[in-house]
C-alpha cells in the first residue's frame, strides 16, 4: 500500500500508481491449472473434480457440442478477433478449500481481498459475502440472523451436494439463459465454475445487501461463474457483485451467466461495479424474469475490460411488474464497450425505465445498445429510455443504437438520447470560481455520473467516484 501514498511526479505515473489498487497480481505457483482451450476431457475433468450430479455433466457436454457447432458472432459491435479461445485456460483453481472464516483464507488471497476492501465492507454493511478467486469461491460467509430466516447464500457447487437444494438448482439452472442463446452462453455452460446460489424465502426482507466479489488473478484464463438467485414472493434482496483483475498482456475472458428469478410481489436490486483490467473480454450474460407486482432494479457501473458485450435482460412477465435500469459506462484508451440492456414487457400495466450514461475519452469507444419490446398482451405498458453520452475528446467515439418494437396499441414508449461534450461555458464558469480546468472537468463528469452513484451503497459510490477521478486524472496532468 505504501506506493499508493507516494506523491506522483509525472503524469504517466499517476495512472500507474493509482491503478496499483487493482493491478497488483499474485503468483499462480502451486495452482491447479487446466490446459488451454476446450475439450471433452477438460469438461469431464471439471465436472469430476466438482463431483457433480449426472444431469450437470450431461448439460455441460451438450453445451460443449453446441459451442463447437455455433459460429462466433459475426458483424457485431467491437471485434473479438484478438480473443483466441484456444489459448484461454477455462479452469484455474487456487488449490484451497472454501473458507467460512476470514482467517482460514490463504494469505496471498486474503491480502488481495483486503486490498480491495472486502472484509471491511462485510463488517460494516453486508449481510453476507462470497469471494471468488479465479475459478473457485475461496470464502463464503453470511450473518447468522440472515441464515436463521432461511436465506441461503452458497455456491452452486455446494448446493448441488445438498439433497434439499439440489432439486431447486436442477429446477432453475439454465432455464432462463439457454445454452444455445449464443456461442458464449454455450461456452459458459460447458465450463462454468464458481458463482453464487441465493435463495430468499417468501416474505423475507434482507436488511443489508449480499455481495459477491470476483477476482481473476491468473493470466490467459477465463472466469465462468454462474449466479442463480431466486427471490420468492414478497421477499426483498439487494445483491452486489464486484469484479476486478490485474493487468496482463494476454487476453483474459469473463463469460459469466446470471439468472435471476423474481417472484410475485418480490423485489430484487442487482448492483454491479465492474473494473476488469483492460485485457479482459467481458462477454457476460444476465437475465431476469419478473412476476406480478414484482420489481427488478439494475444498477451497473462498467469501467474496465478491453471489450464488453453486456446487456442485462429483463422479462416483465407478471402484470404490473416493473424494471428500472440505471447504468454508466466509462470507456478510455484501448476500450471498446458495447453495453446497454434489453427489456421485454409482456404483462399488462408493466413499466420499464432505463437511464444510462456513457463517457468516452482517450480514444475509447462506447456503444449503447438497447431493445424495448412490448408484447401484444401488454396493455397500458409504459417504457421510457433515456441515454446521455459525454464525449471528452475528438479521438473517442460514442454510438447510440436503441431499438423499440411495440405491438400493443395502448402502450406508450418514450425515448430520448443526447450526445455532446462539456460546454466551454461550464468549464469557464467553474474556473472563474477558482477550480483548475482538471478539477472542473472531473466535477462535471462526476455530476454527470451522479444519478448512478446515488443508486449505489455509499462505499461503492465512493469507489465509483474514485474510478472516475482516476480515469480523468490520466487525461489532464
Amino acid at each position: 500500500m505504501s506506493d499508493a501514498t507516494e506523491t506522483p511526479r509525472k503524469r504517466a505515473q499517476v495512472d500507474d500508481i493509482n491503478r496499483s489498487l487493482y493491478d497488483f497480481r499474485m503468483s499462480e505457483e502451486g495452482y491447479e491449472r487446466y490446459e488451454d482451450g476446450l475439450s471433452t476431457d477438460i469438461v469431464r475433468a471439471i465436472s469430476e473434480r466438482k463431483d457433480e450430479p449426472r444431469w450437470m455433466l450431461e448439460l455441460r457436454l451438450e453445451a460443449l457440442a453446441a459451442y463447437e457447432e455455433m459460429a462466433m458472432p459475426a458483424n457485431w459491435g467491437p471485434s473479438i478477433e484478438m480473443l483466441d479461445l484456444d489459448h484461454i485456460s477455462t479452469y484455474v483453481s487456487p488449490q484451497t478449500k472454501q473458507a467460512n472464516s476470514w482467517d482460514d483464507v490463504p494469505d496471498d488471497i486474503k491480502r488481495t481481498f483486503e486490498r480491495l476492501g472486502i472484509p471491511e465492507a462485510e463488517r460494516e454493511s453486508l449481510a453476507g459475502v462470497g469471494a471468488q478467486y479465479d475459478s473457485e469461491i475461496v470464502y463464503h460467509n453470511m450473518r447468522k440472523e440472515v441464515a436463521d430466516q432461511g436465506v441461503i447464500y452458497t455456491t452452486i457447487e455446494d448446493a448441488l451436494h445438498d439433497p434439499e437444494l439440489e432439486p431447486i438448482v436442477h429446477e432453475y439452472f439454465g432455464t432462463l439463459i439457454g445454452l444455445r442463446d449464443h456461442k458464449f452462453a454455450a461456452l459458459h455452460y460447458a465450463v462454468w465454475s464458481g458463482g453464487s446460489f441465493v435463495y430468499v424465502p417468501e416474505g423475507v426482507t434482507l436488511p443489508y445487501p449480499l455481495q459477491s466479489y470476483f477476482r481473476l488473478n491468473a493470466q490467459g484464463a477465463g472466469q465462468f461463474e454462474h449466479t442463480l438467485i431466486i427471490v420468492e414472493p414478497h421477499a426483498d434482496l439487494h445483491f452486489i457483485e464486484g469484479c476486478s483483475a490485474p493487468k496482463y498482456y494476454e487476453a483474459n475472458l469473463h463469460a459469466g451467466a446470471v439468472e435471476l428469478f423474481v417472484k410475485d410481489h418480490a423485489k430484487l436490486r442487482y448492483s454491479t461495479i465492474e473494473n476488469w483490467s483492460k485485457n479482459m473480454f467481458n462477454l457476460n450474460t444476465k437475465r431476469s424474469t419478473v412476476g406480478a407486482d414484482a420489481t427488478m432494479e439494475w444498477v451497473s457501473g462498467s469501467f474496465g475490460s478491453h471489450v464488453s458485450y453486456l446487456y442485462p435482460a429483463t422479462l416483465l412477465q407478471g402484470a404490473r411488474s416493473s424494471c428500472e435500469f440505471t447504468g454508466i459506462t466509462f470507456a478510455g484508451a484501448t476500450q471498446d464497450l458495447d453495453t446497454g440492456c434489453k427489456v421485454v414487457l409482456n404483462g399488462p400495466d408493466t413499466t420499464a425505465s432505463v437511464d444510462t450514461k456513457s463517457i468516452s475519452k482517450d480514444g475509447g469507444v462506447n456503444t449503447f445498445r438497447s431493445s424495448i419490446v412490448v408484447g401484444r398482451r401488454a396493455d397500458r405498458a409504459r417504457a421510457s429510455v433515456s441515454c446521455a453520452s459525454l464525449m471528452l475528446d475528438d479521438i473517442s467515439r460514442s454510438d447510440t443504437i436503441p431499438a423499440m418494437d411495440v405491438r400493443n396499441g395502448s402502450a406508450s414508449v418514450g425515448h430520448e438520447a443526447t450526445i455532446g461534450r462539456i460546454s466551454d461555458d461550464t468549464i469557464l464558469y467553474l474556473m472563474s470560481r477558482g477550480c483548475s480546468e482538471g478539477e472542473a472537468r472531473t466535477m462535471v463528469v462526476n455530476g454527470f455520473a451522479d444519478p448512478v452513484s446515488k443508486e449505489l451503497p455509499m462505499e461503492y459510490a465512493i469507489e465509483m467516484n474514485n474510478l472516475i477521478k482516476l480515469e480523468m486524472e490520466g487525461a489532464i496532468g
Partner: protein
Amino acid sequence: MMAQTISADQADTTILAHVNVPPAQTWNYLRINDLSLEVPTPYFAGDVHARLPRLFERVECGIGADAVTWMCRAAGDARYVEVRADDERAEPLYVDVDASSAEVRDTGVLVRAGARATIVTCAHGGGGDTSASLLRVIAERDARVTIVEIVACEGTQQHLDAVGISAAEGARVEMRQYALGGSKVALGLCCDLAGASSRLELDARYLVGGTDVLDVNHVVRQRGRATRADIVTTGILADAARKTMRETIDLVHGAKHAEGSEIETVLVTGDDVVNKTLPVILCDEEDVAGSHGASIGAISPEQLAFLGARGLDESAAERLFARALFDDAAIHAPVDEARAAVLARAATVLGADVARDVGEVLGFDQRGA
C-alpha cells in the same frame, strides 16, 4: 442500347434481400436490420449503360445498392436535369410515377452553385405490382433545394422510393416526405452533408392502415463542419399496420460544430399494430450535438385536454390527426397532379366527403386543381 431477349429460364421475380439496411445494426432477432422484397426481374440483363452522369453513382440512397441497381435497370431510361448556376427555377420539377402501370423512374438532378429548385415526386394509383422512384440530387455550393416526396399508392401496390442527396458547402435542403399508402412501401433516404454549413430539414409523415407495411431508412451523414440536420417524423398507425422506422444521424470525424436532431411521434390507433423504431446516433467527433426523442402511443394527455376543451373527444381527435396529415400533404404539394393524388388517396382513407372538404377548405376547387 440494345434490348436483350429474355431467356426462357429467367426467373420472373428477384429477391432484394437487403433493402433499407441502417449504417449500424442491432440484434438480428428483432428483425429490424433490413427488409426483403420480391420484385419483378427487369426485362433485360447484362450491362447497363450509365444513363446519368457518373457523378450520381456515388450518391448514397439509403435504400441500398441492390435496390438502386434494380431501380436503374427496371427504369430502363433516366431523366437528367441540370439547374444552371444561380438560376431560380420557379416551376417545380415533377416526377410522376403511375403505380397502376408499374412505372419505375430514375431521375438525377444537378443543382449548380447558388441555384434554387423544387423537386416533386409522386407515386399514385394501384394494382400495378411493383413501382419505384429513384431520385438523386447533387446540390452544389449554396444551392437551395426543396424536395416533396409523396407516395400515395392504393390497394396491393408494392412501391420503392429512394432519395439520395449530396450537399456541398452552404447548400440547404428542405424535404417533406409523405407516405400515405401502398401495401408494401420501402422508403430510403440518405443525405450526405458533405460541405461545411450544409443543412437538411426533413419533415416526414406517414399514415399506415389495414395490413400495410411501411419500411423506412433515413440516413444523414454529417461530414462537413457546422452542418445541421433536423428530422421531424410524425405518423399514425391504424388497424394492423406494420411500420419500421430507422433513423441514423452519423456525426463523422471532422464534423466539428455539427448538430443533428431527430424526433419521432407516433400515434397508434390500431390494436394489432407492429411498430418498430431504431433511432441511431453515431458520434465520432467531440464538439458536436446529437439528440433523439421518440414518443410512441396515444395522444398526449395535455393535447387531449386541450382538444377536449375545443369539443373533440379522443376518437374525434384521432380523426383530426388523420385528416390533418392529408391536409398538410395537400398544402405542401406544389403541383396540381400531386395534390390530386393526395386527395384521391384521402378519399380512400377518409371517405369521399372528407376528401372533398379537404380540397374545398384549402381552396383547391377554386384554383382548378
